[in-house]
């Protein structure tokens, strides 16, 4: 029994540097309200309502054990099914998809929430490294990314300008996205002159601290068609882990991403991504990642990420626009970033991406990652 699953509604909060007026669950509730309002669904258990909820949050960022208690409370977990993904939120979407495919549920809601402003991120990230060999070096995801950027630059000759181009493009795109946090465009010079955070990564090449949430509702074909005229169908998914130890990997390559993409493409019947995909939303926490991940996704050959951006292929008007929303660099919280990518692709395919709509978007790709130097990658291909 193979089921077809579609995204029927999406919602986002505005992403902001800090949301001191709202507690985590209150932010989640803003999403729940929007989703229920848009679909007119309820949590009824007679087969007409939402069957289950997948939340995405983190004990570390929220500062409490079982961080999904408050999120679940406002997302329909009263005497009902709720599960928590504690990694990048794209995995919450994929898990919701698997739950529906299994036949156990028909309609599932997935929501990711994070308030980065409440704590100090690099301390949390340091606890993602194994405590025996790596943690004591003081690594965080930024320091690890700097190692990866250096290796990538060294191996393939990526230039500072090519990396800066990613920032200029994405910040320019964010101007037209009403939910983006950083909506002022920046120039190439501004990026190249910004302060060094961890060489070679500069301030404007890294994602800002961000608070916010986003979510979506997935449904079986039969129910999706009743809920909306423009569902975004899930055509393929892929997930893959890399080795944990940075020294075990060639950081200039992202094999796990290629493997995740291969699975998703096979399911979606995609053989030439550059030709068959109309737009992509990629999780670039740091500028170089958009280039490296583009290679992993097969948008260009190995080491050609720099040329891809130079040729303008990934611009709004290019052959394959990447991050028309402005991407993670324009401000998405960690954990939420991956879900936001799916939400943006769904909006584009539904024709509802106000201000930054790509015309005639039929097939889109969303990518999420977490862990140092992209240890885990997930890819989702959506179609109209």
């Amino acid at each position: 029994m193979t089921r077809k699953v579609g995204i029927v509604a999406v919602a986002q909060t505005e992403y902001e540097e800090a949301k001191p007026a709202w507690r985590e669950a209150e932010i989640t509730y803003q999403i729940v309200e929007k989703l229920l309002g848009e679909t007119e669904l309820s949590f009824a258990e007679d087969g007409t309502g939402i069957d289950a909820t997948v939340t995405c949050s983190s004990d570390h960022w929220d500062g409490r054990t079982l961080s999904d208690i408050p999120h679940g409370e406002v997302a329909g977990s009263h005497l009902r099914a709720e599960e928590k993904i504690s990694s990048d939120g794209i995995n919450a979407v994929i898990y919701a998809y698997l739950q529906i495919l299994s036949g156990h549920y028909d309609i599932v809601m997935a929501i990711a929430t994070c308030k980065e402003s409440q704590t100090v991120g690099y301390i949390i990230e340091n606890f993602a490294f194994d405590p025996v060999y790596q943690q004591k070096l003081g690594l965080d995801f930024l320091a690890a990314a700097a190692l990866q950027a250096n290796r990538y630059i060294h191996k393939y000759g990526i230039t500072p300008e090519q990396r800066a181009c990613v920032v200029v493009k994405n910040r320019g795109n964010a101007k037209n996205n009403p939910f983006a946090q950083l909506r002022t465009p920046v120039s190439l010079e501004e990026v190249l002159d910004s302060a060094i955070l961890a060489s070679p990564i500069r301030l404007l090449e890294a994602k800002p601290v961000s608070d916010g949430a986003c979510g979506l509702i997935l449904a079986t074909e039969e129910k999706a068609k009743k809920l909306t005229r423009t569902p975004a169908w899930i055509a393929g998914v892929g997930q893959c882990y890399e080795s944990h130890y940075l020294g075990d990997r060639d950081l200039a390559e992202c094999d796990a991403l290629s493997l995740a993409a291969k699975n998703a493409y096979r399911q979606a019947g995609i053989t030439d991504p550059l030709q068959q995909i109309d737009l992509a939303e990629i999780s670039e926490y740091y500028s170089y990642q958009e280039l490296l991940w583009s290679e992993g996704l097969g948008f260009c050959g190995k080491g050609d990420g720099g040329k891809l951006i130079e040729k303008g292929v990934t611009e709004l008007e290019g052959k394959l626009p990447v991050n028309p929303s402005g991407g993670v660099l324009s401000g998405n919280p960690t954990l939420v970033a991956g879900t936001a990518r799916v939400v943006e692709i769904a909006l584009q395919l539904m024709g509802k991406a106000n201000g930054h709509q790509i015309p005639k978007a039929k097939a889109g790709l969303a990518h999420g990652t977490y862990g140092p130097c992209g240890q885990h990658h997930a890819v989702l291909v959506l179609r109209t």
Partner: protein
Amino acid sequence: MALMVRAGSITQYWSCEHKERKLMVNRVAIIGVGQTYHTSKRPDVCIPELCNEAVKAALEDAGLTIKDIDAVVMGNMELFEGRYHQDLWQADYVGVYHKPGFRVTTGGTTGGTLACTAFFCAASGLYDVVMAVTFEKQSEGDSRAGLKTVADPIWDRWISTGAIGTFARLGNWYMKESCATEEHAALVRLKADRNACLNPHAHLRLNLKTVDDVLKSEMLVPPLRKLDMCPTSEGACAIIVASEKKAKKLSNKPVWVKDWVEVHNETRYNRGDPVSLENLEKAALTIYKRNGITNPRRDISLAEIYEPSTWAELVWSEAFHFCEKGEAYNLIERGATERNGEFPVNPSGGVIATNPIGATGMIRVAEAALQIRGDAGPHQVSREVKRTFTTAWGGSSWTVAHLLSKSPD
């Protein structure tokens, strides 16, 4: 009685308003289980090495190699060991390198939830053979501090007491509501200990002989004694789940997964609710109703439930409808729930004897699968095991329940 009122309300809710949707779930089966031995401290291994022991045991049990596994899902109590994205460090040791996988955590129910996650994945059609790995290594963090932060930082944290306070209240409440005494709780411990002594994987094997052995143990919070509570254990558990087609091909003794259900609820300490049983009851009733179970003691062969305290086994046996309300003390008194009794409950020794929290819910599933296969070893029950009911509990009012079966139909 408060229990009757609560139970009444949910039963009523059940029969009047609830129209159960027919599930169209693809069949899946458990084809391998593995667990480590459990003890208070494992300084000889790090977390990934601990998980690796369970993974190897599960693969050996299934007669497979890691190459046969399509995807691996992982989980534990997120904050207990303090690791952020714990799955990242484990990845190389559980065989998910360059493979699909992800991590799910739902507190105390994590083990039970991860079993569900594996069921979802194997039933989805995307993956044929899925492994779920759970663990807890409590000596690397502070579980009591971890449990205290379950409570809301503004409203509840100042009155939160962790697990011991919760179960002391449950005991006091139950003694008021029923004819049970502290001796009945002690009988639960004696049964658990007798079973644990036969289970090579169990953590506490104390050879307790009499009710007095239990009653003379240190008082924690009245009426809760040290021997009324579970220990803090370290250990890991893994199960391998396959789609119907693969299960038939790969396994001689597949254990079929008939159904599973997850029920969460709000966690509020400041409202003064003495106990929360709706979630337990709803989980059980959902499973029973969907699978035509009208008399659980007759229709189910045995139960492996998540009972972190003796009092929990008594009260929850009623919530799961193993007996009438207020009758659980009678069940233990007449030995009905003994390993060779009419309806064995926790023949493995249960959570009172062994509690590596993140893995505990999955150990229930693994033990039930072994009983169905007849491979449980010294603690195999004497009756034929056709169907088993397993639960996980956590979050202070969350329940996950599964129904496993010997036959696919």
